[in-house]
């Protein structure tokens, strides 16, 4: 049927479709700054030996860890899940054992979801924004570009269109947008008050506080894409801010066209998979095979808090930390001291008596894995041709073995 296996790849470090550039042998010239940074971190970690499933099971006391998992009274599945396959296995594991499941640091994701579930949204995907926009408004700060360095290039087409940078952008960050071919205007502003300021500019075509070009651009733009990353907004109750922004976008759509491109990281895969398998985006506690969704009660950090408060009884609890990132275990997790199984390519820096670690391949390196682009519109198969290859079982393999009776 299909003969399309050649030349498929995806950067498994960020949520963009970054194609490796041809003709560059050196990573430093080929890839973006984030990729280089994370590759350096991976290289600096102690090298892992090539091990089969049975070798790891024997050497890392898998049977003991599985027994502890099976006998526990309270279970949590959490971590940094990035790929579709791992997310599927994680949900199945949680369902099978009546566990709570939530991504680590999923607050930004759930603020976006809360706003959408309350009042809906108007969105535009990356490729559409790139092709159609006559004005792009980017709300955020340099941190956004540190995480997604190629975002300006990904949004850039041949034509020179205006980009309005709102928030807190350095000259260097502005330069990245200029280099990508945009006509840039940066305005330092309090992000929290933006929805009102934008509304004023649009109505008056000119604002007392802003450059007159803003109103002019807004009036003339046929299609406006508004870009932000919820995790980079940096204030509490971002869902209410999103409500206001979406209200501005909805009003604008009465006469013009406009959409929000809400950019996230690779964690979108877990949200998507959870939703199609259970009907809920995460923060679920399974009971008798049924999913109980409570975005406040069933967050991973609240589970840890509650478990710590149990004191000695917390020995009947256990968490699985699934890691498909290059980051270390968070301090909050380490300090909890809760019995834990860590599945991932990186050995935990801290050790405690009830910690089990099962080394695994990094998803998307050597073996195929599916990821979601940052706008969660496109699911792409990633297989990094220049990753650091280690012959180890995949994360999903470990989760399936834990699920098996």
């Amino acid at each position, binding site marked *: 049927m*299909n003969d399309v296996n050649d030349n498929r790849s995806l950067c498994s470090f960020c949520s963009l479709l970054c194609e490796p550039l041809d003709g560059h042998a050196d990573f430093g010239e080929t890839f973006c700054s984030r990729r280089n940074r994370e590759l350096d971190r991976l290289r600096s970690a102690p090298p892992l030996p090539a091990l089969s499933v049975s070798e790891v099971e024997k050497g890392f006391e898998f049977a003991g860890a599985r027994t502890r998992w099976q006998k526990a009274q309270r279970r949590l599945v959490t971590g940094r899940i990035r790929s579709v396959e791992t997310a599927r296995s994680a949900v199945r594991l949680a369902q099978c054992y009546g566990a709570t499941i939530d991504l680590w640091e999923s607050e930004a994701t759930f603020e976006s979801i809360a706003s959408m*579930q309350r009042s809906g949204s108007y969105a535009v995907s*990356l490729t559409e924004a790139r092709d159609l926009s006559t004005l792009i408004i980017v709300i955020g700060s340099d941190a956004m570009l540190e995480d997604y360095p190629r975002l300006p290039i990904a949004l850039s087409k041949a034509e020179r269109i205006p980009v309005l940078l709102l928030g807190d952008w350095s000259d260097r960050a502005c330069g990245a947008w200029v280099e990508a071919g945009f006509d840039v205007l940066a305005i330092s502003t309090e992000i929290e008050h933006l929805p009102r300021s934008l509304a004023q500019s649009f109505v008056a075509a000119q604002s007392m506080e802003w450059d007159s070009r803003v109103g002019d651009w807004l009036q003339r733009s046929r299609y406006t894409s508004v870009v932000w990353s919820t995790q980079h907004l940096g204030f509490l109750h971002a869902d209410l801010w999103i409500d206001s922004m979406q209200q501005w976008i909805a009003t604008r759509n009465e006469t013009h*066209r406009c959409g929000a491109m809400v950019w996230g990281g690779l964690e979108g895969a877990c949200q998507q998979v959870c939703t199609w398998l259970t009907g809920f*985006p995460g923060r679920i506690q399974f009971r008798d095979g049924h999913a109980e969704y409570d975005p406040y009660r069933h967050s991973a950090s609240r589970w840890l808090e509650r478990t710590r408060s149990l004191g000695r009884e917390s020995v009947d609890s256990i968490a699985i930390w699934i890691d498909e990132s290059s980051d270390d275990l968070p301090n909050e997790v380490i300090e909890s001291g809760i019995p834990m199984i860590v599945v991932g390519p990186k050995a935990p820096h801290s050790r405690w008596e009830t910690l089990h670690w099962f080394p695994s391949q990094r998803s998307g390196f050597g073996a195929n894995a599916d990821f979601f682009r940052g706008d969660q519109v496109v699911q792409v198969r990633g297989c990094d041709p220049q990753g650091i290859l280690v012959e180890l079982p995949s994360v999903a393999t470990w989760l399936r073995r834990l699920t098996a009776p």
Partner: protein
Amino acid sequence: MITLLSGIQIIDGIASSTSSNRLYLVEDRIAYELPAGRRVDAEYSLPGHVVFAGGIDLHTHIGGGKVNLARLLMAQQTDQRDVRREYDTKPWLQPLSCPAPNTWETGRRYVQMGYTACFEPAMLPAGARQSHAEMRDTPWLDTGGYVLLGNDRMLLEWLAQGVPQSQITDYVAWMVAAHAACAIKVVNAGGIDAFKFNERSMDLDHPHPVYGVTPRSILRSLSTAARELGLAHPLHVHCSNLGMAGNIRSTLATIDAVDEGRIHLAHAQYHCYGDEGPHGFSSAAAQLVDRVNTSDRLTIDVGQVLFGQTVTLSADTMHQYANRQHASPRKAIFQDLECQAGCGILPFRYRQSQYVHGLQWAIGMELFLRIEDPMRVFLTTDHPNGGPFTGYPHLIRLLMDYEFRMSIFEQLHPDVKRTSSLASLRREYSLHEIAKMTRSGPAAALGLQGRGTLQAGGLADVVVYRNDRNYEAMFGDPVMVFRRGILVYRRGEFLNDCPKMTIVAGMRDSDSGRGWHRVKKHRDAWQKQYGYTPEKLAIANDELQGEGRSIEENRPSP
């Protein structure tokens, strides 16, 4: 493994005169004779029961980005008012947890009605991998999807440039094969893209504001491509002017616009409205019925409205946006997607007391009852748009039981009762006709081999129902369901898993299409349009295999 079902009444849409009361399931095939030298491994004596082939739903939104958004939008929105105590004894019959249920519940509830194959009718090309992934996680069902074309900017640009039809046909071949589709879907040809340029309506001969092409020219070119490629299923079309009063004119014109008149009209109920009567909104079902009854190249699925809470989702952003004020609860999601299409998602409650909703219900009924050949009108609610698929047993009862139908009709808005001719339509569907519209008809329309029929050699997807005059109870609660000869479901209990198929398009000679992505000018055009290479989103065979899944090609048309 050989299973014998005896004492049964066989209901088949093709071999309607079958007199046998015994059916053998020999491995994964149907037989009427015990193969020589073999013995029966399991026998079920089932007097008072009828046996059908597994049901086929050729238009149900079960997988993809917009379905997942609908799940998200409707999480915790289940209306428990409909849950009655009677479900305590048969919990599998209770309402869905959500009008757009999760994949597990979708597979389970379809099998619990006797359906074994379902087709997602609107796969955004860029979202096809997700659609297939969701369908992979939908248990027990064979699945397939139709790739969404007709608003993809590359196509619009080429049509504007007047490129040769052969170039369009090769491109279509690539899009169908690369996204593992089994047919082509067109939604509001050109209109979704026009909405992105702030056009708020688009009729069949209305030029696109940028490319200048008309929906008519898009439909013509794509239907020609479908014919040239020999796709078994004709162009699957969601017409312009969805849900608009007077849209029957553009619907009939759409039928005339396609190549050789070969077309499948999706959720036709939403496309046959007149603009007469006291509310400026009337039934034009009779006009569409005339066309269906006089052309053997035209098939429809109805998209029947069922009263209650649901969620509507469509790639037709233009018309979903126009309906946003009708959302209930008042919230909506709209997306402009990938230079290919869009989506609009609105929660919706169909009310018996509301004139338009009541008339939509009556129009759907009219289509079912006036179209003579049930091999060309298929039972759908356009799940979840007209209502969740779990309403099918209720819908079948409406078609088979005049008194029951009238009991609902009597509750509608007085103006619906005054203007609709439904009361005069006394037709009651037979079991054989139900088999045609839910089994053999969709199988024939999709070019599925050995499905939808109980003829010898056919696939042993077999459903046993207790013969009951209450057809809603009967079709909502099968006694047994076999998948490929394996008993997977019996009286509310799932017993076994089963192998699953992904159905993709068999095409006549399409070598040039399969290699389309390697032609430099095409690669360059794609890269310029999308910002990445064409292979990025193409689905390889191995992605559709494993975990008990395999690939089946439907039959190219001669």
